[in-house]
């Protein structure tokens, strides 16, 4: 646990509230054609979970914790990398059709 940034109690609630509004605002004004790429893009963003999994694995003290931590990093890495590639491919098509216009 990172001692320089303790997030507890009301500070945690404030962060939660502000972040929730941010997400709502980002999606709220989006044209329907971008819904699938954005869903895929947000799917990529929660791939940040891999960072937590790395922390859990580095701090694992028993074989059980190491095994679960290993699986966690594996899955999280798949989420991040797969989410990136799929979103990038989807959005690339918008770019190429722009050029042809």
């Amino acid at each position, binding site marked *: *646990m*990172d*001692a320089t*940034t303790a997030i507890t109690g009301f500070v*945690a609630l404030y962060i939660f509230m502000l*972040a*929730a509004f*941010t*997400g*709502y605002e*980002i*999606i709220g004004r989006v044209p329907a054609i*971008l*819904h*699938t*790429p*954005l*869903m*895929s*893009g*947000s*799917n990529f*963003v*929660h*791939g940040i*979970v*891999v*960072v*937590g999994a*790395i*922390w*859990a*694995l*580095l*701090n*694992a*003290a028993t074989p059980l*914790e*190491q095994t*679960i931590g290993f*699986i*966690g*990093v594996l*899955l*999280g*890495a*798949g*989420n991040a*990398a*797969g*989410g*990136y590639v*799929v*979103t*990038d*491919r989807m959005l690339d*098509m918008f770019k*190429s*059709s*722009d050029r042809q216009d």
Partner: protein
Amino acid sequence: MVNFLIAAAFFVATLLFIYGLKRMASPVTAPSGIRVAGWGMVIAVAAAFLYAFDVRPAASEHLGTNFLLALVALGIGVAWAWRSGKRVEMTGMPQMVALYNGMGGGAAAAIAAVELYSGNAQHYGFVVTVLALVGGLIGAVALSGSVVAWAKLDGRLNRTLRFSAQQLVNGGLLALAALFALYVLIVGAGGVPTTGITLFFIAALVLGVLLTTPIGGADMPVVISLYNAFTGLAVAFEGFVLQNPAMIIAGTVVGSAGTLLTFLMAKAMNRSVSNVIFSNFGEEDDGSGGIEGSMKSVDASDAAISMYYGSKVIIVPGYGLAVAQAQHKLYEFVKLLQKQGVEVAFAIHPVAGRMPGHMNVLLAEAGIPYDIIHDLEDINEEFALSDAALVIGANDVVNPAARSNESSPIYGMPILNVDHAQQAFVVKRGQGRGYSGVENELFFADNTHMVYGDAQKVMVEMIEAVKSLGNA
């Protein structure tokens, strides 16, 4: 110093995530948006390895092994996902999104498991334990649920598993998971109830499976979006457990954005989210009993020629077009019509393809310009003014039963008014029913003609028919 570096890296990463998502919200800046967010991820992951400088005393003797394990897991995960993501066909994107999402949920559940089994969460008190448990539950449900959704969309699981009192069983499972969680909380102050934690996760995983199996294929996009929001929330909760602000903010942003997106998708299909999850889609009478008349078929060339001599044609593309990979041939045909002076427009139903916006992606792949692609609201009035409507591989989204037949399971869903066009040509592989299993009245209408065949082959025949006219 190391702690400062980690905190600064996470701050930059979080900033890049939000800025990247913001850029993704406009078609012009979207392609750069994912790259911006991608750099955020690279920075965050690199910083995460700095955690090695400050590990728990109990783990310090395993540090070398753990560091190596982390690198190996990261390498395998990235390599596999990168390859599979590059290889998948555009039509297969939705199920890959489901699969990657499930992996994220699984990673969140894994973090919860490590923190609970190690007794670390319990050590930090009641609130942290509750957050770890809730995040673990949501993450595990998202994992098993997404895998079922992937299997269904990928055609690996075709059966829609339903049994009586299913909602009662699901409620029971949720109660059971809550009970195990409570047990972990109570015992948690004094020790680590390994069996209780294991049973808790098993109950959550089974719940995810049973929640998803009864849901019909047509509703699957809504479910994937819902699980995407679930994973976001799970990541945020585990972020609180680990005191990781990047996970908290990124997870919460995705949680709320995903929830809103889920409601938008459900609204496009005129279904409520609870209706999707607890529905009986396809179970009731399909409401087809009263259809009169018969289907009339016509050759592809005849259909093409009558469109060639029209002045306004509206094309309704569906998933069948994408499966046949016919969008390029279709555009070739459209260009021939346009050369003749025919006004051509595309009408996209909000759930055409398998997800909102999916069809736009597929048409963009073929290079079809934006300005002739229209949403349902923009174009629905124009069907009455058009000479012909060409429906390719779409079915439920043009079924007039949604407007008129209250007993139909798709009643109330907004549809494209193809039946208002002078005449309609429907390109279809065979006489089967649509994704929802409902018979389509449109196909039996007097001014509808069916063109049977694979969409790609039909388009080639249409192009040839029109070209031979041009040469004559």
